[in-house]
């Protein structure tokens, strides 16, 4: 599957000491039916990335998206935070064992 434009932009921002979370209000990514594109870019102090700059994040993007998927899988497996607190209160070692197994079963790249 092709790497999302969002992922490449996110990595481009991070490579330039910025974050998607902080800048997403200054960037509009859009898809009118012919693929994702940058509709507007108003990031202070950072130019809109060129196509070649974005293409350079293809490999890193694959890793990022794979790890994101793993994080989501882990988060789902961890369960509700309230339930985990109860689990820790009752038997913290058992909780640690369960969490470690989840991490081992879903290793990041």
């Amino acid at each position: 599957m092709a790497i999302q434009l969002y992922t490449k932009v996110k990595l481009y921002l991070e490579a330039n000491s910025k974050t998607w979370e902080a800048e997403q209000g200054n960037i509009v990514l859009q898809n009118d039916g012919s693929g994702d594109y940058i509709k507007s870019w108003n990031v202070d102090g950072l130019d809109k990335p060129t196509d070649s700059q974005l293409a350079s994040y293809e490999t890193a993007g694959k890793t990022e998206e794979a790890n994101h998927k793993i994080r989501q899988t882990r988060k789902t497996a961890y369960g509700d935070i309230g339930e985990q607190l109860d689990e820790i209160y009752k038997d913290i070692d058992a909780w640690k064992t369960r969490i470690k197994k989840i991490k081992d079963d879903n290793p990041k790249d």
Partner: protein
Amino acid sequence: MPYIGKSPSFGVRNRFVYVATSGATSVSGADANGATLTFTDGAFVDVYLNGVLLKPTTDYNTTTANTIAGLSALNTSDEVTVVVYDVFAVADTVSATSGGTFSGGVTVNAGITMGGTTPTLTIGDAGAEDTKIVFDGNAQDYHIGLDDSADTLNIGKGSALGTTTAMTFDANGLILKPLQPMFDVSATASQSLSSGTITKITFDTENADINSDFDLSNNKFIAPIAGKYLLQAYLTFSTMGAGSGIGLLWYKEGSIYRTGYHQSTEINITHSISSTVIFNLAALDEIEIYAFQGSGSTETIGDANGVGSPSADNSNYWSGFLLG
């Protein structure tokens, strides 16, 4: 103005003057002024001889049509004056005072005002036939009429009742507007949405599109006329992790007009978002729907799997109509 005698158009009293020849005992035909004696009833004739009124049947008779006969032999230059009283029949007219009935068509080349306590214009006579009022325009005619077979009051274009009907009222008070612009579209397949990207939503099925205002090829509604439109949409997002934001964005003429946004606090739950908006549109304004999701991954939309929809179809839909 009141008058006695002759009206401008109809004679009610005609006078004929004859200058006699010696020995004549009758007068008829053209008189001294060229007027021809005619009468329909001898009882309504006065005959004067040299200014003296003669006695009917004794001094003259009217046995012969249009002839005063039986006179004593006249002398030369005797003047016989015949006064014919006749009535003109005011047949087949409607009384201005009492009213009445016209049995044929009537053309009025000026306005009509109905006064009185309860002015009422009744069209029809309880018969089993359609009745209507036609507005005869220069370029376009319209009609309001009763469709007797359907028992509906119809308003429509043209002069013929039942063609291009824009509105009907039935006997129960239900009102239909069969040509009012309205559409309903849905998607039978899910659509991928990149994270963080405002993506135009596509549809593939027109369940209804009265007036053909929805452009299914380009997934946009195009207003056919300036007016207020009520549009509503429902989008179903796939399962996403906690903190994932989703949004529905209405685009008007290529720019964001209204936005609905939801950020999940739940884990692994299918989200949906719906929106209803009244637009004040100009003719040919274009409306599109975009969606947003911020899960970090590519997600699908239009997938209501497990919610009574095994095929996961038709969980994205959009409909709307012209309010007025």
